C-alpha cells in the first residue's frame, strides 16, 4: 500500500435513466502505483471513459456512483475522494493532484482568447501569481517541443498535434501526481502519436507527473509505454497484468481476441493475419448473465452462463476473471 497512488475498491457507477440503469462501471477494483503507466484497454462502449469520470468523481447526472470507494494519495496520506461531492473534489484536487488530457484535446483550449490569457485566468482561478505561471508554461512549452512565442497565439493557429501538446503543457502545469489521458492518440497521425507518447514519458521521467492512466482502444499504442494493462469488457475488468506477460501469454479469451485483432511486427502474427472477435459488446442496460463475455467466447463452458467469474490473482501481479483458470487457483 505504501507506493500506491490511487486505489479503487469495488467501484460501481451507473447511468441512471428513468426506468433503467446503464451499468457502465460495475465492480472495478484496482490500484495505480506511483511511477507507472497503466493502459486501460477495451472496445468502444466498455466503460473506459466512464471509468475516467469516476476516477475524477466527475458525477454529472445521470452518472451516479452506486457503490465502492476511491482513495487518492495526497501529500503522503490517502483521501477518500468517493466520500466527497463532485464540487469538493473539483475544488481540492482537479488540476492540482489529478488532471486529464481529454478525448478531443485538439479543441480543449478556449478558442477565442490567446493562450497566454488563458494561463493568466488559470493562475487567477488557483490564486497563483500570473507572471510566475506564465513563465512556468513557457518552460513547459519548451519541454513539450513548442516554441515559446506560440503562447501569445490563439489555439487555432497551431496544428492539431501542436495543440495537443499545448494541452499537455497547460494541463500538467501544476505538477499533478496523476494524469489520465483519454483516447489521446486516436485523432493523431502516426508521427504525432509517437511525439505525443514521447512527451508523456518525458513528463513522467522528469517527475512532473507520477503516474499515467492511458485509456485507449488501441493496443498498438499503449504497449509502447505501458507498464501494466487493465483489460475491460462490458463494465468489468477481465484481466489485469504487467504488459510483457500479457503480450506473451494473454490469459483471458477476450484479451487474446483483442491481441489477435491487431497487426504487430512479430513474424507469427504476420503469418496469422488479423482475427476478429465475432459479435459485438453487449448492451449494458441488461448485460448477459454469468460471465459477460460468454456469448462471444470460444471457450464457453456451462458454468460461464450461470456464475460470474471473480477477478483472482493466479500469478504474482496477474489477475484474471475467467473459469478457465479456476483449477489453477490455490
Amino acid at each position, binding site marked *: 500500500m505504501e507506493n500506491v497512488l490511487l486505489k479503487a475498491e469495488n467501484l460501481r457507477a451507473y447511468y441512471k435513466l428513468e426506468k433503467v440503469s446503464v451499468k457502465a462501471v460495475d465492480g472495478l477494483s484496482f490500484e495505480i502505483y506511483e511511477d507507472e503507466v497503466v493502459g486501460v484497454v477495451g472496445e468502444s462502449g466498455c466503460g473506459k471513459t466512464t471509468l475516467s469520470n469516476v476516477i475524477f468523481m466527475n458525477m454529472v447526472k445521470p452518472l451516479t456512483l452506486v457503490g465502492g470507494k476511491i482513495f487518492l494519495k495526497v501529500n503522503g496520506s490517502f483521501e477518500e475522494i468517493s466520500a466527497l461531492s463532485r464540487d469538493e473534489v473539483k475544488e481540492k484536487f482537479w488540476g492540482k493532484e489529478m488532471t486529464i488530457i*481529454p478525448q478531443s484535446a485538439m479543441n480543449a483550449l478556449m478558442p*477565442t482568447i490567446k493562450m497566454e490569457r488563458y494561463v493568466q485566468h488559470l493562475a487567477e482561478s488557483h490564486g497563483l501569481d500570473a507572471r510566475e505561471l506564465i513563465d512556468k508554461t513557457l518552460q513547459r512549452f519548451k519541454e513539450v517541443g513548442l516554441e515559446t512565442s506560440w503562447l501569445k497565439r490563439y489555439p487555432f493557429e497551431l496544428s492539431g498535434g501542436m495543440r495537443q501538446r499545448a494541452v499537455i503543457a497547460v494541463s500538467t502545469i501544476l505538477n499533478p501526481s496523476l494524469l489520465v489521458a483519454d483516447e489521446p492518440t486516436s485523432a493523431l497521425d502516426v508521427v504525432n502519436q509517437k511525439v505525443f507518447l514521447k512527451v508523456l514519458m518525458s513528463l513522467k521521467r522528469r517527475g512532473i507527473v507520477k503516474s499515467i492512466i492511458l485509456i485507449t482502444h488501441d493496443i498498438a499504442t499503449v504497449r509502447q509505454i505501458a507498464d501494466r494493462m487493465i483489460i475491460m469488457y462490458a463494465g468489468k475488468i477481465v484481466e489485469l497484468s504487467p504488459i510483457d506477460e500479457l503480450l506473451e501469454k494473454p490469459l483471458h479469451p477476450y484479451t487474446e481476441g483483442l491481441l489477435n485483432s491487431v497487426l504487430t511486427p512479430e513474424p507469427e502474427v504476420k503469418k496469422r493475419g488479423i482475427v476478429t472477435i465475432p459479435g459485438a459488446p453487449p448492451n449494458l442496460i441488461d448485460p448477459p448473465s454469468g460471465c459477460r463475455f460468454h456469448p462471444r467466447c470460444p471457450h464457453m463452458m456451462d458454468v460461464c452462463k450461470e456464475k460470474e467469474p471473480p477477478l483472482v490473482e493466479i500469478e504474482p501481479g496477474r489477475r484474471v476473471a475467467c473459469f478457465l483458470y479456476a483449477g489453477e487457483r490455490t
Partner: protein
Amino acid sequence: MASRSAVKYILRRLIFLFITYVVATTIVFILPRAIPGNPLSQILSNLSRVAQSNPEAIRAAEKNLMEEFGLGKPWYLQYVEFIGKALKGDLGTSITYYPRKVMDLIVPVIPWTLVLILPATIVAWILGNSLGALAAYRRNTWIDKGVLTGSLVVSQIPYYWLGMIFIFFFGVKLGWLPVQGAYSQGTIPDLSWAFFMDALKHYILPFLSIVVSAMGGWAIGMRLMVIYELGSDYANFSEYIGMKDKRIFRYVFRNSLLPQVTGLALSLGSVLGGALITEIVFNYPGTGYLLFKALTTLDYPLIQGVFVILIASVYLANFIVDFVYALIDPRIRIGQEE
C-alpha cells in the same frame, strides 16, 4: 499579401451586392404593377366628386396624370426612367399624396422609425441574451423553466395581437398611456420639453411591445447556444484543470454571443421596414406605416421609394456584419489573413 486578398474580397462582395441590389429593385418595380387595380382611381374619384357634371374633364385629367406618372408607356421604358431618376436621387412623385415628392414623404418619417425600433431592438437583444444565458446556466431550475416557457409563449404570439393586448390593457383599461400616434393629435413637433414628454408617453407602448415580442426569440437561441457551449470540449477541459466556474461561464457566454451579434446586425438592417405591423397597430408615423399606406393605395412610386431605401439598408447591414464578425472573432480575422 494580406491586404491584397482583403481588397479582392471586398471588391467581390461589392460586385455581388450591386448585382443583387439591381435584381431586388427590379422585382420591387415589377411586383406592384402585377397587382390588379388602378393607382389613379383614388385621385380620379376625388376629382369626380368636385367635377361631377363633366366626365370629359375627368378623362382629360386621367390622360394628364397618366402622362405625368409615365404609366402609359411600356413597363421597360418606365423602368429605365425610374432607375435613371433614382440614380440622381429623385424617386418620383407620389400618387396618393400628389403632388408631393416621394423623397419628401420618406425622409421626415425615417427618424421616427429609427428612434423607435433601433433602441427597442437593442434592448430586446440585451435582455433576451441575458435571460437565455441565465436560463442555460441554471438549467432545469425554475428560472430555466420560467424563461423557456415564457420565451416560447411570447415569441409565438402573433405580434399584432400582442400589440392590441398592450393597447387594450395599458391604454384602454388602465388608461395609463395613449393608444396611438407618436404624439398627441394637434401638436406640432418641435424641440420643447412639453413635446418631448408627450412623445415619450406615446413611445412607451410600441417600444415595450417590440421588446417583449423580440426578446423571446433571442432568449431561446441564446439558451441553446450556451447549453451547447457548456458541454463543449474547452468548457470541460477548463473545469478539469481547475478553472473557476465563473471564468468558464464567461468563456461560454462570450463564444455563444458571437452568432447572436450577427443576428443583431441583420435585424438592425431591417429596422427601416421591420416594424410595419407595430406602426400600423399603433398608428405610428414611420416608414412602415408609410409603406402600408402606399401598398393599400397602389402608389407605385412610393412603394418603390420605400423599398429602394429599405433594401439598401439591409444590404449595408449584411456588408457590415462580415466585418464586425471578423473584428470580434479571432478565428475569422486571423483565419482570413492566412
